[in-house]
């Protein structure tokens, strides 16, 4: 039988160490909404989302009450809209009307984000893909809850450099279109390599075409819990360190699994996956950088950081995989800058640069995330950064992503405030040497040799 110490341990994790379930994300297929008439398509999309997700928020609250565990976000992901809108949309403006429909559906269901305003163009772009991508700045400026992502490469297909070049421009345009809000639109736009079909985390969530009609995915969290556990093993060997992380990850994941199963049963929608990511928030004590500090580097970015992060990421997976048979999504430690107080401190102290962050993304999910750069950064430089990050994903057969925010009107050292879970960030310098001759080459980078496994 459960004893008092175990009960106290769980409740301390929740009350003092910020243990929560980060998100229940309901994936909804919109393939059966496809229609060549735009108005009809929009109506069908709205009806499908609002009926399927009708109870999502109430069910989330019920589970919170039953277990006294906060479920921070309830969210929806949908089939990439470039596919859903291809038959009806003739222009970027047509796609923007779908973005507005998604926004309305999000408001109606009470979720705080809806993801899937996406295009999958790792090998080539259809006319619809290109129209959707070109509509992103306008779509993100005209909506509140919509998140957008574009997959521009994969290990199997290589990197679509035409899309990479275009995304550099689109990110700049999005920054410009939302400059009144410190270019907030870019915080809701991710560029991916090897994007997973079942990621529950925003801004990159979409409901892949390989998925069922509707599915419940859950993202867990808990950097604070791992950090507190590690405080008790200071100076111990790597074996003890790794064991502690594994055991903690197991416990965190078990809670996620419980919540996922409950949500699935209450909604009558199948359970998909648990995403094992350690997702930080700007709250004090909920930081991945603080774990790295506890492992032994003064600031994230100091020599040893990449090794410490590799170890952390691997142990989190090992513990989590033991706790749930269906692990998916991104599953790893996130290292966003603005959403992690320890990362912000590291940037301010001069310990962490864009280049070191890039190195760190080689060993963890998911990529260059929530990094504010000067608004004057050239589109070609952004494309160059994207290409670098996509190459890391392609060669290492892992998901990588870029979520950069060129803050219009601000420069290195200034602070940008996004609010809420998105946090705030000091603007980081970007290497200013030119790469436009590279980025301007048309076509794609071929798939790497180790992708030929057949």
């Amino acid at each position, binding site marked *: *039988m*459960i*004893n*008092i110490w*175990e*009960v*106290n*341990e*769980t*409740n301390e994790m929740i009350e003092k160490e910020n243990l929560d379930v980060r998100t229940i994300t309901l994936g909804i297929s919109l393939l059966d909404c496809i229609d060549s008439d735009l108005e009809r398509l929009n109506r069908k999309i709205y009806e499908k989302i609002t009926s399927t997700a009708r109870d999502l928020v109430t069910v989330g609250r*019920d589970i919170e*009450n*039953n*277990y*006294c*565990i906060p479920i921070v976000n309830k969210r929806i992901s949908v089939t990439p809209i470039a596919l859903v809108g291809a038959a009806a949309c003739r222009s970027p403006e047509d796609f923007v009307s779908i973005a507005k429909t998604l926004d309305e559906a999000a408001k109606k269901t009470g979720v705080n984000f809806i993801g899937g305003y996406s295009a999958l163009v790792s090998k080539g772009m259809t006319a619809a893909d290109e129209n959707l991508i070109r509509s992103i700045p306008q779509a993100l400026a005209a909506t509140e809850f919509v998140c957008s992502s574009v997959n521009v490469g994969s290990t199997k297909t290589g990197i679509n450099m035409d899309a990479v070049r275009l995304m550099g421009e689109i990110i700049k345009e999005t920054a410009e279109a939302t400059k009144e809000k410190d270019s907030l639109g870019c915080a809701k736009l991710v560029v991916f390599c090897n994007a997973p079909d079942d990621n529950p985390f925003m801004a990159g969530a979409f409901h892949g075409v390989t998925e069922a009609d509707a599915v419940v995915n859950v993202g867990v969290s808990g950097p604070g819990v791992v950090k507190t556990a590690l405080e008790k093993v200071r100076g111990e060997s790597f074996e003890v360190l790794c064991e502690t992380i594994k055991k903690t990850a197991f*416990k965190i994941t*078990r*809670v996620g*699994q*419980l919540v996922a199963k409950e949500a699935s049963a209450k909604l009558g929608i199948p359970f998909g996956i648990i995403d094992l990511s350690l997702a930080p928030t700007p709250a004090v004590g909920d930081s991945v950088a603080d774990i790295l500090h506890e492992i032994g580097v003064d600031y994230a970015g100091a020599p040893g950081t990449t090794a410490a992060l590799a170890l952390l990421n691997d142990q989190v997976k090992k513990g989590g995989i*033991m706790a749930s048979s269906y692990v998916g999504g991104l599953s790893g430690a996130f290292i966003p800058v603005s959403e992690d107080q320890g990362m912000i401190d590291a940037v301010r102290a001069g310990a962490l640069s864009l280049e070191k962050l890039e190195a760190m993304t080689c060993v963890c999910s998911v990529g260059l995330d929530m990094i504010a750069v000067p608004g004057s950064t050239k589109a070609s430089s952004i494309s160059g950064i994207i290409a670098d990050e996509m190459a890391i994903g392609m060669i290492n057969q892992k998901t990588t992503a870029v979520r950069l925010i060129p803050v219009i009107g601000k420069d290195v050292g200034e602070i940008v405030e996004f609010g809420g879970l998105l946090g705030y960030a000091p603007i980081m310098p970007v290497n200013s040497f030119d790469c436009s001759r590279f980025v301007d080459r048309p076509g794609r980078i071929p798939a790497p040799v180790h992708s030929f496994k057949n």
Partner: protein
Amino acid sequence: MEPTMDKAIITVVGKDTVGIIARVCTYLADNGVNVLDISQTIVSGFFNMMMIVDMAGAEKSFADISAEMDELGSKIGVSIKCQREEIFEKMHRI
């Protein structure tokens, strides 16, 4: 067949005063909640109790009982929390 159980864990934490257990147990008895196990300690002057209870015989809903216990806690000056057992079971057992 044995009747099915509906197990929950009640935790009471706060400054120790006379009659905490009595008042909590009275509430549970009045509402048809059966106590299966109690453990209690005092940690540096703080009262710390855990009860495993069976709510199968309760007439009120889990949410109502949980809210009323929370209210009772504020009257006594302690924090009372009511959680379904599975969260502990899943976290601490393989």
